[in-house]
């Protein structure tokens, strides 16, 4: 039964690689994108942490920066 599922009348040689290639491509792009996002978040945290109080006020006044900080702090990873 399992042999039939994998062989698919001989077409398994084509079907399984097509699906595996697709899923690996998805996983790769997801991983790359995730790593890029984490890298930029880490950079933002480092730069934000190194700011003096005057610059901190300017940065925190921008809504997008506040949202980014909220997102980084609430993120589990």
């Amino acid at each position, binding site marked *: 039964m399992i042999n039939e*599922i994998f062989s*698919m009348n001989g077409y398994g040689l084509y079907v399984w690689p*097509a699906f595996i290639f697709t899923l690996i491509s998805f996983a790769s792009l997801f991983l790359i994108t995730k790593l890029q996002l984490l890298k930029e978040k880490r950079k933002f945290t480092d*730069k934000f942490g190194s700011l003096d109080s005057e610059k901190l006020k300017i940065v925190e006044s921008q809504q*997008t920066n506040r949202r980014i900080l909220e997102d980084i702090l609430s993120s589990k990873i």
Partner: protein
Amino acid sequence: MLKSFEPNKIFKITSKAPKYVLFLFIIVLSIGLMEALFLSPEDYKQSHSVRIMYVHVPSAWLSLGIFSVITLLSIGMFIFKNKNFSLIAKSLAPIGFLFSIIALVTGAIWGKPTWGTWWAWDARITSMLILALFYLMYLLAWKIFDNQDKVIKITSFIAILGFINIPIIKFSVDWWSTLHQSSSVKILSKTSIHSSMLIPLAIMTAAFTLFSILIFLMKYNTELIKIKNKGLDRL
């Protein structure tokens, strides 16, 4: 309406949505794979090789759809002078490129048992390859050029030029005598594909669309935070 495209407003959604989209994507993909690989019937001519359709066709559709959206955004960028449009387009490009590659590779794999060849310089296949090249040019342009205004103009030009290829891909099977079969799924007339295959195809297309949304959300967040990081450097 254009205020809805402000990065701040978009980030509110793009930062929270990915985990929900990922969850939904995994569920829909699991159902789609069950249908595609096990539950849907084999074809009377192509036997089980028809199952490749469930990854090949959604990839092709989405690669065309995403490039069309990128082109619309590029035109919108020129009309409304909203640079956020180019940011959205830049965030969509990687997933569109990936889908074009998946369509080409799975198409080649499908071609071997069906046509006896991995590749043919058929109109549909060749125009899909050209689409992949346009995607590649688009992505490389963002990497090569540093000047923001210059890169936006160049990438917009690439997108608008590449859009000429989209109707060629779509209608190539009607205009020329090609190896590639003509459309089975039609919008304006009756679809010739049976529901036992159409439903799994729709589920897989939904799964692939969710994946596109997921990657877009993550990529857009990355681009926005990158811009803010540059802003912090300038302080």
